[in-house]
């Protein structure tokens, strides 16, 4: 048990720190500090340009995907070094969000299932930010029930022809490539008839439409496919093996989400230090405030240290497991609760959503409107609890109404209405 750096780690940290001092876009510091996690607030420069620029610079020095093999654009670092790098990257990590899905989920899936040639061709460009990737999994009728997807792929010569619709696709507008799961056989049980591809997003017949969210942003998209052709060479795994391929992605999604454990507690604490509640009194002087803060604090520190435990396990050779579901399950709710709590302290002025007028540039108002999506995207609270219950604790699966049934015979809202 050692929380401090070993001498070797200290040397590595110094190297990383020096490189960042020499190379990071320090001119963006103020704007990055004002950005809440998941929401880049850059006005001096196009966020995508800034993001690509930082990713390219990191890539040239081996920091872009530091834990990947060098031949695919990686830096060959171990998992502890990767954590040290993350700590040192700090503020500038906020510039990486366009690449998280590619680096965290699509890349590892390609690494496990693509041909050597495809890997050498695609992964370095993914790593360097030249090519953004997206994940074409969820559908309108298949959210939590991911294996219930209906987008069809039909073999036609050396190609597959795709028709259907995906939804909740982050960065589909910016993406050059997408990881696409399809149904190739609806006559077998639902997990058996799936096939995975990677798709050139510029293929004819692909249409992307942004989804307007409750907070007025559009982080997600709908993607429609009309007779889109994919060469069979871009199939990952055998036909019918798509669910197995998807599990690689999902396992890496959990690991990626587990890393994102910044609850924003420090900002709330700082806010309570500053907020005046009377002559010579600040919010932090109120016992009620301290008690609530303490309950948030143990979740914040608990998640951080759980991530450290996870990394220590990885560094000993363990695989990222279902226990990583804790991170998002806890942090999404805690962010929502913290936002409500902070707004309460602001009084009626807590209503103000204009960053120019609201306290702390509207940080907590923004979190209030964003946190509901956090509790759903990437696995809802309920799905994560089921994963923990079944995969960690070994409790039985829910009784299935769709087990041992051909996909096309599974009850749906439509059949229920007809029936």
């Amino acid at each position, binding site marked *: 048990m050692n929380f401090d750096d070993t001498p070797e780690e200290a040397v590595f940290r110094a190297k990383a720190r020096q490189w960042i001092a020499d190379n990071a876009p320090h001119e963006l510091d103020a704007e990055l500090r004002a950005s809440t996690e998941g929401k880049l607030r850059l006005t001096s420069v196009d966020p995508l340009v800034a993001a690509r620029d930082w990713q390219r610079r990191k890539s040239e020095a081996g920091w872009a995907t530091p834990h990947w093999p060098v031949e695919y654009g990686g830096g060959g670092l171990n998992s502890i070094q990767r954590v040290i790098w993350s700590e040192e990257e700090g503020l500038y990590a906020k510039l990486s969000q366009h690449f998280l899905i590619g680096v965290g989920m699509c890349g590892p899936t390609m690494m496990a299932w693509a041909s050597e040639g495809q890997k050498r061709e695609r992964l370095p460009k993914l790593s360097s930010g030249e090519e953004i990737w997206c994940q074409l999994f969820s559908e309108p009728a298949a*959210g939590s029930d991911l294996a219930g997807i209906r987008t069809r792929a039909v073999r036609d010569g050396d190609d597959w022809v795709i028709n259907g619709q995906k939804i909740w696709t982050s960065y589909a507008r910016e993406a050059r490539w997408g990881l696409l799961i399809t149904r190739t056989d609806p006559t077998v049980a639902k997990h058996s008839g799936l096939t995975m591809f990677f798709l050139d997003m510029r293929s004819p017949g692909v249409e992307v439409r942004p989804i307007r969210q409750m907070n007025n942003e559009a982080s997600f998209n709908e993607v429609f496919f009309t007779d889109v052709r994919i060469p069979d060479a871009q199939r990952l795994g055998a036909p019918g093996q798509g669910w197995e391929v998807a599990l690689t992605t999902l396992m890496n999604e959990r690991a990626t989400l587990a890393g994102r454990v910044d609850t924003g507690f420090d900002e709330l604490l700082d806010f309570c230090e500053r907020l005046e*509640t009377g002559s010579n009194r600040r919010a932090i002087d109120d016992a009620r405030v301290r008690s609530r803060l303490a309950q948030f604090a143990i979740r914040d520190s608990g998640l951080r240290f759980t991530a450290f435990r996870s990394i220590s396990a990885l560094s000993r050779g363990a695989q990222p497991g279902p226990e990583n579901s804790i991170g998002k399950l806890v942090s999404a709710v805690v962010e929502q609760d913290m936002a409500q709590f902070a707004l309460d*302290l602001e009084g009626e002025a807590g209503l103000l959503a*204009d960053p120019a007028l609201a306290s702390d540039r509207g940080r907590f108002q923004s979190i209030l409107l964003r946190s509901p999506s956090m*509790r759903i*995207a990437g696995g809802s609270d*309920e799905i994560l609890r089921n994963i923990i219950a079944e995969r960690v604790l070994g409790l039985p699966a829910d009784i299935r109404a769709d087990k041992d*049934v051909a996909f096309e015979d599974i009850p749906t*809202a439509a059949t229920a209405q007809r029936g």
Partner: protein
Amino acid sequence: MQFEFSDEQQELRDSVRRFFERECPVTAVRAVIDAGTGYDPALWRKVGDGAFLATAIPEEYGGIGAGYLELCVVAEECGRVLAPLPTLSAIYQVAEYLMIAGSEAQKRRWLPRIAAAEAIGALALNEGVGEMRADRVAARVSGGRLIGEKLPVADGMAADFAIVAARDEAETLGFYLVELDAPGVAREAVETLDPSRGHARIVFSGAEAEPLGKGDRGWTLVEEIRDRAAVPAAFEQVGGADRALADARDYALGRYAFGRPIASFQAIKHMLADVYVANELARSNAYYGAWALSAGSDKLSLAAASARVAATAAFQRASASNIQVHGGMGFTWEYDCHLYYRRSAYLALALGGPSLWEDRLIEFRRAAAA
């Protein structure tokens, strides 16, 4: 004892509900948001024609004079449809300021116009971030002229006049009537969490200010009227919470996953059962508030705080759970879930946040126990 609305009041509820279903579909709420007007002038006029919100204003001042139970009935229906109307400002508060502290001339001038929805009054207390308190009032009146800035002011853009808290030359806190189209008033709409109930920033630079009534009431008037307003506000929250629960229920019944309606999963069933429980506790506390307000009970402060704390928690829970049940659709702009979530945030903070009311609840429960 009869702890239920009377048959006549339930008939009123039914007719108000039919009115709002017809006149205030959610598309009307969205139209207000899209237009940025902060309220629905057409609906406001129709409500004035029906005098639905004038039930507690005496007949001699143009109201119905029926009482506060009827007002609570109407408030619940306003909450259910997310009515984009200046209820908290003009009806639950400004009309009360006039009735309790206004001069006879002020009552005769403004109350009939409010009752008929021909005028809107706003209440300008806040001066920025923090709990509303007397010592945070810095606006000043000198020689009948008002100087200061108020933010946020609910319905400040829509209002014809405002009741403004300010200090005079002797530092005494008082309340002033100010017409908002007059010289020395500058106002701008501000963006808030719930654009279906508009807010403004108002800067007064020498606007004419008429003392409210005899002008001898201090901050206790704010607390007295806040208590009175908290009760119909709680009914708005209860109405909204019930609607959010109904929407969640309907969606869960129609949405299939894993070959079955998601409403058949215990995670969903128990989440909604807990919402129902919170809603019922809130409703029961609100009923006590309605009784205390209508009966002029000395338990009003306790009843108002209980109604408020319970209703705020219930609406926040119901609206968040509604999003959760809807899954991805729940956080789109297109689905209505966020409108309830936004309204729950507005109603939680209007009249002061939950912690203020928790403190008052215990203060008055102690007094009741002593």
